[in-house]
């Protein structure tokens, strides 16, 4: 029990952010029309590409060859997620625009 409380105290800020973000995520998209489901999924798909920051951090502090290679791959994969996600979403939304 004490361990759990200690764990909670140690990470309380992050736990706070996590809980608030959960509610925010639900609130922000709860009134989305069905038409936008696909672009929204694709757009949020791009946002979780933020994981690339982690890849950059790992790679930026890698010294041996293996971590360097893995980090290199991780950065490429993360960039694919980010760039691909945003470009595809933009392409979809562009179609909605053009029609006027």
């Amino acid at each position: 029990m004490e361990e759990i409380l200690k764990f909670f105290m140690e990470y309380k800020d992050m736990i706070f952010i996590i809980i608030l973000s959960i509610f925010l995520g639900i609130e922000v998209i709860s009134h989305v029309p069905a038409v936008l489901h696909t672009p929204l999924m694709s757009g949020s798909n791009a946002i979780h590409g933020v994981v690339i920051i982690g890849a950059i951090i790992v790679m930026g502090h890698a010294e041996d060859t293996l971590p360097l290679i893995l980090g290199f791959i991780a950065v490429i994969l993360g960039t694919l997620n980010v760039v691909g996600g945003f470009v595809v979403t933009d392409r979809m939304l562009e179609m909605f625009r053009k029609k006027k």
Partner: protein
Amino acid sequence: METITKLIEFTSEISILELSYIVASVLFILGLKKLSHPATARAGNLWSAAGMTAAIIFTILFHKKDGEPIGNIVWIVVALAIGSFIGWYASKKVKMTAMPQIVSIFNGMGGACAALISMMEFPKMQAALAIETAPHMLCGEAIAILLGLMIGSVSFAGSMIAFLKLDGRIGDIKNPVLRIINLTFLVVLLVALVLIMFLQPVEGNNWPIYVFACAALLYGVTFVMPIGGADMPVVISLLNSFTGVAAAMGGFLYNNQAMLTGGILVGSSGTILTILMCKAMNRSLVNVIIGAFGVSAAGGSEAADKTVKEISLSDAAVLLSYSQKIYIVPGYGLAVAQAQHLCHELDNLLSSKGVEVKYAIHPVAGRMPGHMNVLLAEADVPYEKLVEMEDANNEMANTDVAIVIGANDVVNPAAEEDPSSPIYGMPIIKVLDARNIIVMKRSMAAGYAAIPNNLFYHPKNRMLFGDAKVTLQKLVAEIKSL
């Protein structure tokens, strides 16, 4: 004196970095908010992209770990360039019909990225703990690493399977035993996760997480394998939220607020989106995951000996030309045949003859919710002509002809009439209310969900067999020659 200025410089860089993360988080939130309204959606996407760019650039410039700045910058930039080029090229080249596939792939890449990060962080953490001679690895760091590894791997493997299924390269394995295996598998994974944390840290002893990663990958495969191809959009949305959580685990690990908010935001909004998608199909998420579709799809098979009526091209042309109001009900078959442009041509031609032409869009027409709107918009069909299901159903009674092109399940009356049908309760486009129905279809084969459709045998309905594109071409020519 020198050290003091260095100290100030050091802290101000960190402050700028943290500030950029706050800006990025706010841009993510505003971006998502804007993405959920048609008028602002495109701007919203750009806002999130701007937030992401800022976070990436400021991380490279200002991130410090124990006072050490980011190294290997050249290699990082090379990797960024390679990734950007491939990502940009692939997204520009992909056909609109293959949209779900590409989203699935990009999602998998994010999951793999999260898993790789964990794979690299675990040995470091273990080495650090070994030096402290800690008795076990029970700490927040280990939880974040292991969960990131597990969720990221599942998301990667699952997305790849979803991609292959959508692309029609692999079929479904519908074996009830698989459900039990999956459930057991999940429990085993979670137990393994806890057990790894109880291990005594020994530097270089990394085999447990390699085994763990392989098992998680395998679970990703068996998790998606039994789910029907028609449910892949829901699965992708679910895996999308998984990847979000995996990214957030990275944020937890690095105490990085941008990753944390971005990841959790996607995790929670992705879950809600998944549920909304299920609702649009009148299914529960559990139902989708367990895969009830197709398993009990025997209902309605007595239709086999009924007869269908065909309509000739010239009859169809006359019928359409002398109608007052027509509803086109497009389905994925239209998209597969790349016939959306011809469809628009038919629409223009008929409109010029004074026929009122509209499109009735089922929320899950196509392969993803909203997919059909994107495809028709690509063919320059005006937005006002795309009518949502409920409004279309209200107008159906004073519609002369409903033309169903390449759609099947979304017009299947079994959803309303047959309680034993697996799609019973799903809202459909009520083409039966229209005075005439023409169904364009390649053959009498069942739809994507493999459910028989009694609409085809209805006395009001007439079939126009053939590839949607070819048939539409002939039909347009026929109407022109009238």
